[in-house]
């Protein structure tokens, strides 16, 4: 055995080749005389051969980093856009958007006509008149809530608008459509008073 050869050459006296020495040699040999699993050469070459393309082994890492950076940038842009859009749309009141085009409201119910006569014309809710609510509950309570789903004739929910616009309840009334009287267009004759020309002409 190789170890015995080395042991003798390294100064092991022959008298020390006792059974315990042989037992030790055998134990070490049984431990260490193990062959590598088959296919070591193939596995090594499989890792070695793509040496030229080995530089691209780091490509997935770079690609992941670039993708993560792109996602962060796009996410930041999206979040910023998402934050700015509600601010722009939220400042525009629905009434202001619909104000330029007056739409005829449905006729009030007969039992509500008495109230209509005593109400002042509805004030135009403008952007300047309505402060943005900065309170904890932007919707307010149920009784003071502003509801866009107001049904015709449902007057109980209307004071909510008065709360928002700071106008008395009585000042808000449905629009009464009156017949439009069109006057004939009269074009006055064009009279020009030209100043006298200099030079006597």
């Amino acid at each position, binding site marked *: *055995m*190789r*170890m015995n*050869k*080395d*042991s003798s*050459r*390294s*100064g*092991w006296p022959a008298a020390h080749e*006792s*059974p*315990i*020495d042989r*037992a*030790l*040699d*055998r*134990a*070490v*040999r*049984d*431990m*260490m*005389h*193990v*062959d*590598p*699993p088959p296919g*070591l*050469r193939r*596995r*090594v*070459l499989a*890792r*070695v*051969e793509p*040496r030229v393309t080995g530089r691209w082994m780091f490509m997935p890492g770079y690609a992941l980093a670039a993708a993560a950076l792109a996602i962060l940038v796009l996410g930041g842009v999206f979040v910023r856009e998402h934050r700015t859009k509600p601010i722009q749309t939220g400042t525009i009141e629905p009434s202001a958007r619909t104000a330029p085009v007056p739409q005829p409201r449905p006729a009030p119910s007969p039992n509500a006509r008495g109230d209509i006569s005593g109400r002042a014309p509805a004030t135009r809710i403008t952007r300047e008149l309505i402060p943005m609510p900065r309170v904890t509950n932007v919707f307010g309570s149920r009784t003071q809530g502003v509801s866009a789903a107001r049904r015709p004739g449902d007057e109980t929910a209307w004071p909510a608008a008065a709360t928002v616009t700071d106008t008395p309840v009585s000042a808000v009334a449905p629009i009464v459509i009156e017949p439009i009287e069109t006057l004939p267009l009269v074009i006055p004759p064009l009279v020009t008073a030209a100043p006298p020309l200099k030079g006597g002409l």
Partner: protein
Amino acid sequence: MAQSTDCVTGTEPSAATDLDLVRLAQAGDVEAFGELVERNRRAVFRAALACVRSPAEADDVAQEAFVTAYRKLGTFRGDSQFRTWLLSITWRKAIDRRKSLSRWLRLAVSPGREDTGEDAFNHIERIPSPHRSQEDTVVDEELQRNVTRLIGTLPKKLRDALLLAGTGEHTYEQISQMLGAPLGTVKWRVSEARRVLKRKLSALGYAYE
């Protein structure tokens, strides 16, 4: 003293020397490096096994060592034997693996347990010796278990030297290069390891003439 020429490589005789194959591999011949792998795979594997004491881990270390050697092949100038250079790489890789393993074992599996290696070799597929009868095997089974356990209790420096010397693949010069210790120190460690083992076996009741 053992010389490099005494080392039993266990490789097939080939016309090309290791240095020739190294030059071919440096020129990009992968097959030449494959031949170097074939010639040195057993020595590399057993060196790693002596350190990490697990065949699976030793196989991983051997692969890493060969791949590292291939990538650093340009730095090999032929001042020393290729096998010595390769074994130095292997031992460094194995030490790194052992350190990480010991840390992992200490922290995750069995904190506080000594790294005795008692069970490290229990799962190694033993090579039955044709010179041993079944009776000898049965009689010595307990002794072998005790020796294996006691080897695991040796200090690492003594154990590494003893196991490397017992691989049958490495000369004392190569062991000295791997361990970074003088040749006389390596021989003393082997001798000391055997002495400690015999003393412990005597304490267990194994008395030999």
